[in-house]
C-alpha cells in the first residue's frame, strides 16, 4: 500500500565528504591539464610581478563602474580629436613601407649600440668630423641621412 507522498528527505552530505569530493574533482582536473596549469602559473607570476594582476583584479571587481567612468571620460569633447586620430593612425600604419622601416630600424639599433659604448663626455672638433667622414661606416650613415633629407623635402 503505497500512498501518494511528496516529502523529500534531502541527502545530507557531510561537509568533510563534500570537501573531499570537490578536492578529488580538482585533483583529477589538475592531473589531466598539468602542462596548461604550469604554464598558467608562469603567466600569473609574471602578471603579478609587473603589477598587472592587481590592476586586472581591481578592474574585474568593478567592471561596470570602471567601464562607465572610462566611457564617460573618453566621451568628453577634448578627447574627440584623439579618438578621431585613432583610426587615422591605423590607416597611417597601412601606408608605411614596413620592409624599409625594418632595415632602417636595424641600422638605427646598431647606431644606438655604438653610441652607448662611447663616453658621452668626449668632445668632437670640426677636424674630427672631417676625419670621421673618411670612416666608411660614418660616411655611409651621412650619405643615407642626406638621401633621407632629400626625399623628405620632395614636393
Amino acid at each position: 500500500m503505497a500512498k501518494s507522498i511528496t516529502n523529500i528527505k534531502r541527502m545530507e552530505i557531510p561537509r568533510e565528504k563534500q570537501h573531499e569530493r570537490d578536492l578529488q574533482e580538482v585533483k583529477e582536473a589538475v592531473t589531466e591539464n598539468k602542462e596548461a596549469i604550469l604554464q598558467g602559473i608562469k603567466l600569473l607570476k609574471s602578471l603579478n610581478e609587473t603589477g598587472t594582476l592587481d590592476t586586472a583584479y581591481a578592474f574585474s571587481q568593478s567592471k561596470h563602474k570602471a567601464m562607465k567612468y572610462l566611457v564617460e571620460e573618453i566621451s568628453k569633447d577634448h578627447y574627440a580629436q584623439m579618438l578621431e586620430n585613432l583610426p587615422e593612425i591605423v590607416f597611417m600604419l597601412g601606408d608605411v613601407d614596413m620592409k624599409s622601416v625594418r632595415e632602417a630600424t636595424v641600422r638605427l639599433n646598431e647606431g644606438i649600440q655604438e653610441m652607448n659604448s662611447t663616453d658621452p663626455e668626449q668632445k668632437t672638433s670640426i677636424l674630427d668630423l672631417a676625419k670621421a667622414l673618411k670612416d666608411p661606416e660614418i660616411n655611409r650613415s651621412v650619405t643615407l641621412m642626406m638621401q633621407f633629407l632629400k626625399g623628405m623635402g620632395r614636393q
Partner: protein
Amino acid sequence: MLERDHTVVTINGREYLADPGQNLIDLINSAGENVPQICYNESLGPIQTCDTCVVQVNGNMQRACGTKVEAGMKVQTQLPQVQMAQKEALDRILENHELYCTVCDYNNGDCEIHNTMAEFGLEHQSRPFQEKPYNRDESGSFYRYDPDQCILCGRCVEVCQDVQVNETLTIDWERKQPRVIWDNDVPIDQSSCVNCGQCSTVCPCNAMMEKGMEGEAGFLTDQEPGMLKSMIELTKKVETGYGPLFAVSDSEAAMREERIKKTKTVCTYCGVGCSFDVWTKDRQILKVEPNAESPANGIATCVKGKFGWDYVNSEKRLTKPLIRRGETFEEVEWDEAISYVAKRLTEIKEKRGADDLGFISSSKATNEESYLMQKLSRQIIGTNNVDNCSRYCQSPATKGLFRTVGHGGDSGTIDDIAKANLVLTIGSNTDESHPVLASRIKRSQKLFGQKLFVFDLRKHEMARRADRFYQPKSGTDLVWISAISKYILDQGLEDKSFIEKWVNDFEAYRESLQPFTMEYASELTGIPKEELIEVAEEIVKADKVSICWAMGVTQHMRGSDTSTAISNLLLLTGNYRKEGCGAYPLRGHNNVQGCSDFGSMPNFFPGYEETTNDEVRERYEKAWNCTIPKEPGKDNHQMIEAIHAGNLSAMYVIGEDTGIVDANINYVTEAFEKLDLFIVQDLFLTKTAEYADIVLPAVPSLEKEGTFTNTERRIQRLYKALDPLPGAKPDWEILQLVARELGGDWDYDHPSEIMAEAASLAPLFAGVTYERLEGYNSLQWPVAEDGTDEPLLFQEGFPFEDGKAKFFPLEYELQYDTTEKYDLHVNNGRLLEHFHEGNMTYKVEGIARKTPNPFVEVSPELADERGIREGAEVKLISEAGEANGWVTVTERVRGKELFIPMSANGKSAVNLLTDNRVDKDTNTPAYKEIAVRMEVLKEEGKSPIPSNNHRKGNPVPQYSVNVENKWERDDYVFPGDQVNKDG
C-alpha cells in the same frame, strides 16, 4: 524541359537558363551575381519593401525580387546608375537603422543588414540616422520591438500574415512615421499574438528580438540603457567609416562563437517534429533559431518550441534517486538505487513470474530508449508486458491503417498536406495541437486556393477559417464517413481503375455500407443530407484529398473503426499513392510514432513484427541470447486492470504522468497504491511519481542524444545542447545500468550503437544509421539497407502479400449519449501554449503569466439557461468522479457541450471525470465520451483567462504587407527613379 530551353536570360552579358516564371532574384543568386537584398528571403518570397535589389531590366530600373523572368530578358546589375540606385536604397535603410554592431546583441555573424552593407562595400553614410518618435515595446513575454532600429522591411508582417497566418502584425503606412503595429495598435502583450516567435526569427536585424538574447549575447551588451547609449555614441566616434566598424564588430562576433553554443535539436512538444538550433551560454538558453533546412518546419515554430524551455532549468528537477522509506522519499546515491531496483525486480520475478511485471515507455523519450525498454522487458525480465502512451491516443489510428493499407503512419509528408486541393480535418484542433502543421494548411488555404473542410464539435480556429464547417454529434464520424462512401458508390463516382488495380475485398465492403443511408447518417450526426452529399461531391471532384484526424476520432469506443472508415474512403476515391493525398493521423507527442515503431508494444517487436511470428521471435532470441514469450503481453489498460485483479505487482514507468493522463485517474491511482514495486523515471516528482517506491531522475531532450520519429515517419537526430544536470542521467543510461545489474551484457557507449542494433534486427529500419541522419538530414521509414527512404508511401504497392490494399467492412451502433441525469457532454483537448498535462509548460514563466489557469468553456446558450457568467465556478459530476472549474463563456462550444483543456490539473483534472470505457479494438480510453451534470457553485467571478491572453485579441487579416501603400506615399520615390532624376 522544352519550355525551359526557351527561357534564356542575359545577366551582365552572360546567358543563363531560367525556369519559366522563376523569380529574377533567385536566378541572379543562383548565377552567383552579387546584388544586395534585405527584405527578400527564400522562405518568405518577395516582399518588395527594401528596394535594394534594384537592377536594370531591358533598360528599365526595377526590383529584381518583383520581376518574373521572361525569355530574352536582358539584365544589368553593375552599371553605375544601378549601383547608385542600390546605394540610395541602402542609405535609406541606414536612416532607419543605427549601426552600433559591437554593442548589439544581434551581432552574431548573421545580421543581414551588417552583412549586406559590408558586402556592398558601403564606406560612408550619405544621410544621418534619424530617431523615431516611438518607444520600445517590451510588454510581451518573449520578444520585444524596437521601432528605432526597424527598417520596415515587413518580413515580420509577411510571416505573421501568410506563413504563421495568425494575422496580428501589419505596418501602418498612413502615419507620418510608419511602424509595425499589433492588432489595431495595442501593446504586444494585449494583442492576438500567439508568440510563435517567427517575427523575431525572420527579422533581419535587432528590431524584433527574443528577450533571451538581450544583454546576454555580446561581450559588451550587458549595460544599463544610459550607458549603452554612451557606448553607442562612442563606437560611432571611434569607428569612423563603416570599414573599421565592421572589422571591430566582426572580431567581436567571432569571439561570441566561442562562448555561444548552437546545437541542433528536435522539439518535444508535438508530433510535427520541428527541428532547430538552440543557442546556449552555459546552462542558459538564449534563443531557438529555426533553419530553412529543417525538413518538417523550415523557419516555423510555435510558442512552445520557440520559447518553452525554462523547465529544463527548473529548481524542481530531481537530481538524486529517491527511495520511499515510510512516509517520505529519501535521496540516495545511484549505486544504491540501481541495486535496489535490480533486487526488487528479481524478487518479484522469482516469486510471481515474469508476467507479473509491466513496463511503460515514454512517447517523449527517444527511439533508442523505447528499444531498450522493450529489450529490458523481453530479454532481461522475459515478458511482453510492455507498452507506451500511444495507447492513450494513437493506437486506433494505427489499427485502422494496418487493417487497410498495411503501414501505421502518415501516407506522405507535411508538404503533401500543403499540396492537397482539399483537406478534411476530423476531430482535430490542429491550430492548437499541431500549430506548425496547421499553419501550412492555413497558408495553402489563404494563398493557394486549397479548400478546408472541418468536422469538429468545437468552433476552434480551424473551424472558423474553414470553407465548410460541420459539427457532427460526438462519436458519429464513422456514420457520415460511411454514408458519403456509400453515396459515392451508389452514384458510381468511385475511382474504379484504382480499386481494380490496388484494392481487395471490394464486394464485402460494398455490402457492409448498406445500412449507411443518407437519412440514417443525417439523423445520427445531425448534419443535413444535402450537406453530406455536397461533401461527397467535393471529395470526388478534388484531384488530391488529404484527411487529417486526431483524438476527436481515436478517443472513442469506435476509434479504430472510425480511423478504418477514413482509410476506406481514401481507397474508394483513389487518394493514396500520389502527391498531395492520403491519410494523416496527426501524432500528438514528439515520439508517439517512434515509441511504437521501436517495439514498446505488447504484441510487436520493433518495426511492427508480431511476437507470435516464430521466425521473427527466433531472430530476436538468437541476437539477445534468451527466450521470449510468444503470446502478446498486456497493454497499459490491461496492466491497470491486472493490478486490481492481483495479477500484476510491479511496474516500471518512464516519463509518463499516468496518474494524470490516464482515464479515470481515481481508478488508476488506486491501482498504483496496490503495487508491490513501482519504479518511475522522470524529470520531476510528478503526480505519478508520488506513488512510486523509487524515482530515478532522468534528463530532458536537450541533455541527451538520440532520435525521434515525427508524424511523417521522419527519423531525426537530436544533439546534446546541455550537459545533464549533475545527478540526473539519460533514460538509456539508466536502463543500461539496470539491465547490467540484472546480469545483461549490455555495452552501449552511445545511442548510435543502439540504433545500429535495432536497424540490424528490424527490416523496416534496415538502412537507418546516425551518419545518414547527420545534422538536418532525416529519413522517413521504411528505410532500405542502401538508405533509400519513402517520403510518400505505397509507390511500389501496399505491404501485403499481393501488394494490394484492403477494404475493411464495418458496422456501427451508438453506444454513448448524454442522459437525463448526466445531460452535458464534456470534450477535452490541448491548448496551444500548454503541453499535455502542463508539467513542463507551467514552469515557463512567460506562458504561465498569460495562461495561468485551467477553465471550462460554456456556450452562451447554456450560460443563459443556468444563469451563469464569465468566471463562474462550477462542479462537474460524472459517473466516475467530479471536478471543479472556472467558466469562460464562449461561442467555441455550442449547446450542451463543454470543453476542458487537458492541461487542467489538481481538482480540475478532466480525468477525474473520465471512466473505463475504451476503444473496443485497442483499449484506448474513450476520453471524449464523458457525460456530466453541472452544479453551480458561484454565478460569476474573475475570468479564468487574463486580458493579455491571445484569445482576447483582435487579429487584422490582410495579404502580405500592403507595400503598394508605401509606394503611394507622397514622400516615396523609387530609388531607380530618384537616380534618373538626380542624373
